[in-house]
């Protein structure tokens, strides 16, 4: 397995404010798979994503990515792990407001060992004409495309997407999903997508449903619906 999650537990707070968000999650993902994690609000899906992304530490359990154990890594090691393996796409884009589209992408290009060509990426994502604009000058879809470009420029092995269409309208959401699908096909990027959107599960290889901090159900789609044909986005 490319991504192996075993009995991951994570809690927050102490005493009366103590809450265990992940109660022993175990799952896995093959290289090149697109996977959706679904669940209700507070189910622990984003926490799991953050633990996989090395953005948050887990209390116990194990996460291995391409054979590398994350648990117990020091901050500097986690930083290198993210640098070498991961790409992030967030619901609210998290672009740096005082950097242009190109510069936001350059941020990740700079630290990549084998970065993709930035102009090609801009072209692919339809951002060429907007490359010198600041985030505040872009629409939501354009901003998310910029965020995707930023995540992809490193040519990451694992792309973690937290509600990538959560702040977008239906049409733009579809465009973004089509784009992700294309990238998965073109670069073979393994993708883990956290979403509320029920339609997205149809386009991915694997679906994991989390409830109350545990994997309630996980399955692989035998027949995937192309992103362009998804309904009710």
């Amino acid at each position: 397995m490319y991504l192996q999650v075993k009995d991951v537990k994570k809690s927050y707070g102490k005493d009366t404010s103590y809450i265990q968000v992940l109660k022993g999650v175990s799952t896995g993902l093959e290289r090149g798979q697109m996977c959706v994690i679904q669940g209700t609000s507070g189910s622990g899906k984003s926490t799991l994503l953050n633990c996989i992304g090395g953005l948050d530490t887990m209390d116990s359990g194990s996460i291995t990515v391409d054979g590398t154990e994350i648990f117990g890594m020091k901050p500097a090691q986690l930083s290198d792990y993210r640098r070498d393996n991961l790409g992030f796409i967030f619901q609210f884009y998290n672009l740096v407001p005082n950097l242009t589209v190109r510069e936001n992408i350059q941020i990740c290009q700079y630290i990549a060992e084998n970065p993709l060509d930035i102009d090609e990426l801009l072209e692919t994502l339809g951002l060429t004409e907007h490359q010198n604009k600041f985030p505040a000058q872009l629409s939501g879809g354009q901003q998310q495309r910029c965020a995707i470009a930023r995540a992809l420029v490193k040519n990451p092995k694992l792309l973690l997407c937290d509600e990538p269409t959560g702040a977008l309208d239906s049409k733009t959401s579809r465009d973004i999903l089509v784009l992700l699908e294309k990238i998965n096909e073109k670069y073979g990027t393994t993708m883990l997508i956290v979403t509320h959107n029920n339609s997205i599960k149809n386009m991915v290889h694997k679906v994991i449903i989390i409830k109350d901090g545990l994997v309630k159900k996980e399955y692989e789609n035998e027949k995937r619906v192309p992103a362009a044909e998804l309904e009710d986005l």
Partner: protein
Amino acid sequence: MDKILSKRLLRDLKANFGRYLALLLLIIMGIYLVVSIVGSAEMIMQETENRKSINMVEDGQFTVFVPLSEDDISELTADGTQIESMFFLDLKTDDNATLRMFRNRENINLIQLDEGRLAEKNGEAVIEKGYASAHELHVGDNIKAGGTDFTITGVGSVPDYDMCVANFSDTAVERSSFGLIFTTVQQYDELKSAGGLNAEEYTYAYRLGNTTNDELKDRVRSIKITPEQVEDKYFRETIDEILDERNEIEDGVNELNDGSKEISDGLEELSSHSSDLRESADKLFEGYLAQSNSSLAAMGQKITLTEENYHDTLETIIAATHSEQLSTLMKSLDEIYKFRNGIYEYTEGADSVSEGSKKLADGVKELKNKTDELLDEIFEIDIENLTSFVTAEDNIRIEGAAGDMVMDKNAGLIAGIIILALFAYVISVFVVHQIEQEQSVIGALYALGVKKKNLMLHYITMPTLIAFIAGAIGAGLGFSPIGVGSQAQDSYNYFSLPEFDTVYPPYLIAYAIILPPVICAVVNAVVINKKLSRTALSLMKNEQSAGSYKQFALKTKSFPKMFAIRQLVRESRSAITMVCGMLVSIMVIMLGLDCYVMCCSVRDYTVSDTKYEYQYLYKYPEKTVPDGGEAAYIETLSTDCMGYTLDVTVIGIDAKSKYFDARPEKGKTKAVINSSLVERYGYKVGDRVVFSDFAADADYSFTVTDISDYSVGFTIFMDIGSMRELFSQDEDYFNTVYSDKKLDIDDGRLYSITTKEDIERSASVFVKLMFSLVSTLIIAGTVVFCVVMYLMLGVMIDRSAMGISLIKIFGYRPKEIRSLYLNGNLIVVALGAAIAVPLAKKAMDLIFPSFIPNVACSMKLAFPWYLYVIIYCAVIIVYAVINRILVGKIKKISPAEILKNRE
């Protein structure tokens, strides 16, 4: 809603505790700095002023040769003027210190006791507090002075010896070697009559009634005494010298008078014998004629020879007779006739000379009388009793501490203005930043129907409260013993002052307690009002204006370099904010450093420019310059500096002066001015400068021929000959002698002896006196700088925090983060410091002269290069430490937390 919103206040305080604490600290330090400096200056100045009526401070004092008579005093006090004798005797102690003994004061310059009571009987004395402190003397202790034992009954001070120096010419207070004691009248008189002490000084203090200082002075001057009444031997010597000159002239005229009279008498006597002589001559001639007639008759010639015909008659007969006898007769008669006529001529001449000499004698007599009158007029025998007249304004012993406080007050007020500007600036940056961070909350609340007024009140409350509390704490600390008390300590340690009560000037209270919250409220109101002019939706979406970011092309291909430059340019507003904050806070430090540098320069340059070892200032100049001495002529004129009258010393020197480098040209209007005057007034060669002699109501104009690198006070140099001519002195006059070794000059002839050691000591006093001010300014300024740096850097790093966290998520390493974001801040600080440090220095140098308008001294404020380097390095170090603290905070936040907060 207000109630609910108010619940956020404490949470907001907790969340932004570091920032609020920094703001609190900034205001506390700023207010403390200003209140302590200005408060202590105000306390000393106001309390000194108050003491004038409480302690009945003199309006002036005068010293006389001979004590005033009852009649003199009655005449002088007729207009309500109060006069009290302040006679004193200088007593030596066993350790060779001088204790100046006064009688207990009755009406003027009253003793203010810090402890104990006044002397009530023999053997008791009140001791001046400075001396008591230096010798650790207390009430009940015993001291021996002038061979007499005294029990100390009280420790206190008097307002006429605020600066407790023995002579007006003394430059520094020496607490351990000079002090005052006050005894009963009886004790004083007993010691005086016992003898063996130095001469008593007859000084009177006065408080003016319905008159002026000048009128009183004229009236004291009109009191005359005879030279015989004067006991001072050098004064007597001077009088005698003057009288010798008179006697010499008088003797000469008398001699002339006597001589002419003698001549006149002699000639008169000679003239009185003229008629006898003439008669005898007549008789001789007539006898000879009669004898000739007898001889002729005997010869048969019947002729009678007379005076008129004898020559012609005898000539005719001789021609006819060829008589040898008659020829001889005629010759004899001619000789006798000539003799008689000669006698006539001689006697007439003698009469005439006699008459002339009589007239000469009369004339000389008249000359003598007139000369006597003239000599009486020129060499007035009656002399003025007055030896010195010093008004309180001109008395360095009075209000010395208050005068010294002018610089403190001015420096404090300037620091106050800077700090106020800094408050407004920092608060505005703080508020703008906070409101920007909160704008989505503001938008949401606004959208939910919360009124603008309520929002404004909500956001204004905490910073305003903080500002008010900080102002009150700062004021409390400022007015406390660690503020005003410690600031005033240097003055207490140097001057002889009673323990003053702290004063609370309303303007200072308003400045400390009212202004910070008002500024805070106003700045908040303006910022929030501006924010609330936007729509609620725009605020909620946290929309940013793209127009605020500028796009520009860069040639560099290096991403970190390009990124850092763009980041720097895009954050230029924050950078400018940061640099401005640095500039203003560095100005406070510069103010302290300028004070310190100036004091040190005054000390160092005064010492290095003083090339002589001894300066003897004459009270009664000698005729010849003592061996080993260099004569000079000193006069004091005045100039104005921002309403203060400052002394300008005019020194007349020889062309080859050994002790001064100035080489003044000959000429009554030509002068070399010293560098202190140039530094204060910007004079240059060729300028005409005018200085005044207020006592003589005269102005003296000089053309500046050169500038001398001489820093002691305000000084101008003249050619000594030209100066003597200008001030109408004798050709060989001098009143000062400089020397590199001790000269044998009688003390009584001198006003003062100033050694280089004295000058070094007095020059160092400035540094000592300014220590509190300088240290407070530098320490408080440094704290203020650190706090401002913390707040400003906090704002800059906050603005980058999101970016930093984000790139951290992407896997950036600390070194890379620094190169992209934090190195830019370092560049801002490094460049900012490179601009702010010299700019702050320049600004302070420009306004610095206004701090010390009452001191005639050099204004060398130049820093050694290494001081700039130290300040610069200190700024960078402060940055590094604060940056580490702030970045460390960011590091501690987990990336997930940042994302959560962001979303």
